């Protein structure tokens, strides 16, 4: 069986995998990083989103072999070493953007990528469109949109003007 060498949350790993092993299986089963979830089998729900070299990717439809030589960040790698949360994590908590928490890791990872790639600004419609690859069954998205908007302001150093 082939080896995959990759950096996950700042730590280098070399792992033996089958050709068919998915990245999410490598993360969950080989590295014990169970924060990345599997919610479907058709690449629709986005619970498995991680960052590969800074881009959000659905790890349930990425072969582990494809991640060879890359740098992967999962939900467990977002907070600073001292435990300080990422602004997106803070915003999700502050705005009650999660209920059961199952979609949350993927939602947070997608949202960070969305915010990082749109420094010019994100309207409510932009956020809703940008998150359509992530399903949440609990919140109705209302508070997720609020959280992402708030995090955009924090991450881009802009002051948040109360919109509501």
């Amino acid at each position, binding site marked *: 069986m082939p080896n995959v060498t990759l950096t996950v949350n700042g730590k280098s790993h070399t792992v033996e995998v089958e050709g068919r092993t998915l990245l999410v299986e490598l993360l969950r089963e080989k590295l014990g990083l*169970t924060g990345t979830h599997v*919610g479907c089998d058709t690449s629709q729900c986005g619970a498995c989103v991680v960052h590969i070299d800074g881009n959000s990717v659905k790890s349930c439809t990425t072969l582990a072999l494809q991640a060879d030589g890359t740098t992967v960040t999962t939900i*467990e790698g*977002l907070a600073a070493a001292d435990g300080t*949360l990422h602004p997106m994590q803070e915003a999700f908590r502050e705005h009650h953007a999660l209920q059961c*928490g*199952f979609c949350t890791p993927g939602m947070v990872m997608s949202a960070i990528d969305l915010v990082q790639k749109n420094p010019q600004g994100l309207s409510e419609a932009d956020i809703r469109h940008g998150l*359509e690859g992530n399903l949440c069954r609990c919140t*109705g998205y209302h508070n997720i949109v609020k959280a992402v908007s708030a995090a955009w302001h924090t991450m881009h150093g802009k002051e948040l003007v109360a919109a509501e």
Partner: protein
Amino acid sequence: MNAIFEGIGASVRRKEDLRFISGRGHYTDDMNRTGQLHCILKRSDRPHAIIRSIDTSAAKAAPGVVAVFTHADLDADGVGGVPCGWQIHSKDGSPMVEPAHPVLATGRVRHVGDPIVAVIAETRQQAKDAAELLVIDFEDLPAVAHIADAIAPGAPLVHDAAPGNTCFDWHIGDKAMVDAAFERAAHRVKLDLTNNRLVPNAMEPRCAIGDYDPMSGDFTLITTSQNPHVIRLLMGAFVLHIPEHRLRVVAPDVGGGFGSKIYHYAEEAIVTWAAGKLHRPVKWTSDRTEAFMSDAHGRDHASTAEMALDAEGNFLALRVSTVANLGAYLSTFAPAVPTYLSATLLAGVYRTPAIYAEVRAIFTNTVPIDAYRGAGRPESTFLLERLLDTIAHDTGIDRIELRRRNFIPADAFPYQTPVALQYDSGDYQSTLNAALKAADWDGFPARKAEANSRGKLRGIGVSTYVEACGIAPSKLVGALGARAALYEVAQIRVHPTGSVSVFTGTHSHGQGHETTFAQLVASQLGIPYENVDIVHGDTNKIPFGMGTYGSRSLAVGGSAMVKAMDKIILKGRKIAAHLLEAAVEDVVFENGQFTVAGTDRSKSFGEIALTAYVPHNYPIEELEPGLEETAFYDPANFTFPGGCHICEVEIDPETGVTTVVNFTAVDDVGRVINPMIVEGQIQGGVAQGIGQALLENAVYDQQGQLVSASFMDYTMPRADDLPNISVGTETTLCTHNPLGVKGCGEVGAIGSPPSVINAVVDALSDYGVRHLDMPATAHKIWSIINASGMKMAAE
């Protein structure tokens, strides 16, 4: 009493969030046990077939395979079938037809997804590969999936024991009184409608891990459940015959339930039993396709509703006839859904003096149907609120005025309906008024004109509703056919230094119990919120409990906590009286202090706790040491949240696409402990209601094949399908529980669907549309517009 509620009403940020936002939740599939095996279930791809033979030899010989089990192995061990928890009797007094529901299909498969063989291997992939090597010889039988086909004369039978595919034929209300009222009515309005079949689709797929300790004989089941004690009871007593003290059921973090994780499922029994056979842990994790064909579905009713009115538009009588699809087997609470959870709500918020409803429940070759968020109340609410708008349409009476004219007045509570329930409190005019104002109902014509000028159709719809939750009084539900009680249990353990662990029989799978309950207990005991920990989801830790569904956790579970805390406080007063050399009657407890009334002599809650555990100066002859109390709370009645939902839509006549542009909910959920959480619950419920109304539909083809078995085919609401959802509350207190709370988990999904369809029908009023069944998809609407040959009025 007032002091109890200090601190309640704050939007405290949730305790549970830290672990969820950092990827440190503990969902069942995140857990693995040493030596664990993996189970894959070979399921039927046929809707209905006789199993002629099963050849497991190749699968058994495949790499990594440890065991392959069929029904014969279960039978040899005396494993029972999956039980049903509710028995309905037909009109003629006969009990419902209750066919066997084998854990693994026995001789015949009855729906796509029916499990047939369990393949257990060292890895999940090996089990999957081996399952591909199974050879099953089927003899296909004709199948029925849809209500109309199942009740047609000569329809194929799902169960030989159920002629006409009828499980039961039940009724409620006074038929003669209703018939007489129809005779003398000035108006009679009739509507045929369906309530579309849904798939709950909690984001976390179901998962179960069974384990067995041959030294002690103890079984453990870790499972994605809303009610671990119920699973222990059902599986232990009826399926595997394991006594409670040998069976531990753990429901850790659970990623959403919406009803679908109430029921005892075959997979739970399979992994537990297999662990006992193999002396190794066995794990099964559903994939999403499997979830579509094995999680209990929701709704699927076809009804005819008729209202009799006098000349002024006052309701005289309501007559409803419903056929409810229960699927291929009876799921845990399925028989209760179309009957006591639905037909009993047909009075709605209206003083209809006479109601008669009959419900025929049928079997089909489809996945079992059971309670899904709202469970019966969305069906009756959709029926009533669509009927209301149809009456307005047919009689020309304004739809708001029609509702106001027939509301149960605020001074009529307690109000006895003609269909068994007694509502304790409510004020329907006030929620309607608040919603009309918040939605700017009066400004709608201007918004419609503006939309028309852009070539869009615009409609507005209202729904005024009440529901029954906080389930339920045990004696009452027992009389109605429940095979279980529905009280709730709380244990309050005060630790020696004054911090508190609360053990609750309810279960949180998104509701934020760890926060709301901590707020409740902290405020009542006058201790810091941080000093309270909520423990749930483990039958070895929690005395007992019935779990979370029917918006019952705070109304029933929270009331049990209040009852347990009352006992703690009484004992604390006795200890304080001893320390302060006062009479117990003179010691009052307020803000965390036990004080001799009218003096400054007092002891803190922490001092009393320490004294209870270090009883050196203590009335040891009269009082046991320690400070821990348990309470069972059995509610006196259901609770009755209600309110008003207003939906405003725009339809693009070129594409038929409906966009919800405004959504306003004003609900009366009783006392609110954490407004942020309540708002989130209602928004989530509304999202599911909008999903039902516009997008979601579980589709079987004529042959019984499940066509919509993935997120590619079943339309889940996405972020860009939904609007912002404005939520307001207007409060009347529940009169019979100590907190005055009613419940907020389901109101969103109950009140919203008819408001959406009423808005769509309103938008399509120029096209002669009187009614539209859910989901109002773009294709359905485009077809109506296209067939009319009409252009827009504005053009």
